[in-house]
């Protein structure tokens, strides 16, 4: 088990090495969504989505409430299946395989695709146990390896210095912003390839929000990040590409500069200039 884990680590690293130099020329696609449709019972939640998400970028998904942006994000790790009566059609190709195919187990998918939620949701356990949760469920028992993962993940989430002396304290003793960075660290501990963030700063104060935003900038060097946000300034600040969703459709998807400065669609312009939403 331990060996497997180490191998996987090295594979991921070589991948980065291989793609980085050529990144400016042609970025690799992480997720290729083709004709994705999704229904909640009779409600057509996502309509014919076609979207390519690129490696080592921050992709922001914006749009008014109920436009399907969170639904789309949760489809990317099939968390949407927790809602009963959800049906999907179409394909989402992730690293050459269709994740919507029943043969792709959700457990495997979610090991590669981590998620950070809207409300900080650490477990009511110690900080250490929170971070070690993911590695443990994947079978890592060696205390030394766990220690290293915990430190590396907490450093990765820029919270190591704040918590290193109280790893055995309950994570609920931390502030909301710290809790959210613990959740990000917990997500890093499974060494994912992609990180999905569902409005990760909507429950945080401005200073904590700033810290998380800086962290996202830092993390995109090693991970591909897809972030759903209500906050358009945030999308403009931190993302490389932005997709604008409206009533279950992608209205426009382009480089963030283009979306915010010269949007092609009138509805995008109306939304980003605050005329609705």
């Amino acid at each position: 088990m331990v060996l497997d884990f180490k191998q996987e680590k090295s594979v991921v690293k070589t991948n980065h090495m291989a793609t980085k130099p050529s990144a400016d020329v042609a970025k690799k696609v992480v997720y290729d969504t083709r004709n994705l449709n999704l229904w909640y019972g009779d409600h057509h939640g996502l309509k014919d989505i076609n979207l390519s998400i690129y490696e080592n970028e921050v992709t922001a998904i914006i749009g008014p409430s109920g436009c399907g942006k969170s639904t789309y994000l949760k489809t990317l790790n099939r968390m949407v299946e927790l809602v009963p009566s959800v049906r999907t059609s179409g394909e989402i190709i992730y690293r050459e395989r269709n994740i919507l195919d029943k043969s792709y187990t959700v457990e495997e998918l979610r090991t590669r695709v981590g998620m950070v939620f809207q409300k900080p949701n650490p477990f009511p356990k110690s900080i250490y146990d929170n971070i070690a949760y993911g590695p443990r469920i994947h079978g890592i028992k060696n205390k030394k390896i766990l220690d290293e993962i915990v430190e590396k993940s907490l450093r990765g989430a820029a919270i190591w210095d704040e918590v290193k002396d109280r790893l055995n304290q309950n994570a609920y003793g931390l502030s909301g912003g710290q809790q959210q960075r613990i959740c990000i660290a917990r997500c890093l501990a499974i060494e994912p390839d992609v990180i999905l963030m569902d409005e990760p700063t909507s429950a945080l104060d401005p200073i904590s929000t700033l810290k998380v935003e800086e962290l996202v900038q830092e993390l995109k060097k090693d991970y591909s990040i897809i972030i759903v946000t209500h906050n358009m300034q945030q999308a403009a600040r931190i993302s490389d590409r932005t997709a604008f969703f409206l009533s279950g459709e992608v209205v426009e998807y382009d480089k963030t500069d283009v979306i915010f400065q010269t949007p092609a669609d009138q509805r995008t312009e109306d939304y980003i200039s605050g005329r609705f939403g």
Partner: protein
Amino acid sequence: MRYIDDTVVMKRMTKRITFNKIWKALFFLATTFALVTLAVLLYRIVTQGVDYLTIDFLTNFASRFADKAGIKAALVGSLWLMAVVAPVSIILGVGTAIYLEEYAKKNKLNDFIRLNISNLAGVPSIVFGLLGLTIFVRMMGLGKSVLAAGLTMSLLILPVIIVAAQEAIRAVPNEQREASYGMGATKWQTIVHVVLPAAIPGILTGSILALSRAIGETAPLVVIGIPVILQFLPNGLLSQFTALPMQIYDWAKRPQEEFQHVAAAGILVLMTVLLLMNSIAIFIRNKFQKRY
């Protein structure tokens, strides 16, 4: 012009505040009623039974003579009964609750099952006694044993434990499950590492309260026909036994005045056991409750 007239508002003010006070007093009275009843009951039992509550009373077997009568067989019998009821009802109850809350799909059949478990909690205990008599005592041939009575009692409190465990499991925020699933955990891992640790205080509290109901329950034991006068302790699951409420019931229905006092002493023992169990439940709830 203003729609709200200040003089009218001020006139009504005193009236509204008085009404509030009257309601408060009524609700307080309702609470007092229960407390006073309990106090009267306790006072009567304590004054009646305290003289008979001696070490001998705890270590003697039942007797024809009131001053030699003891509760040993019944006390040990009740403990044996609990030794069967606790594991059977908690394992089956928590298992059912986990299935219903975590695995079962939300469909009509499962809604029907859920509804009926709640209904089952309201079935009179004597009906469970008849069921136990038919199935465990007669069909399975277990006789009037600890096992037969224990299984009957387990059936009786199973619905209560299931409902309590369901509520405890449902009280675990969904965000907690999502966090676990989001890292690739299976349902089972999520249940073991996230849901159960958070739900266990609630489950245990509910289970202990259900067990204390079982320890005071008489009707099913009467129907099964377990003896009231035993001069030996049970020596195994298939052994005969008697239980605290049976023994108290037997003493209370005797014509001699002294036995009323013996019965009161027996009630004191039973209530001590109940209070002990309930305090354990409260202790567990306060000590291990997780706050999100």
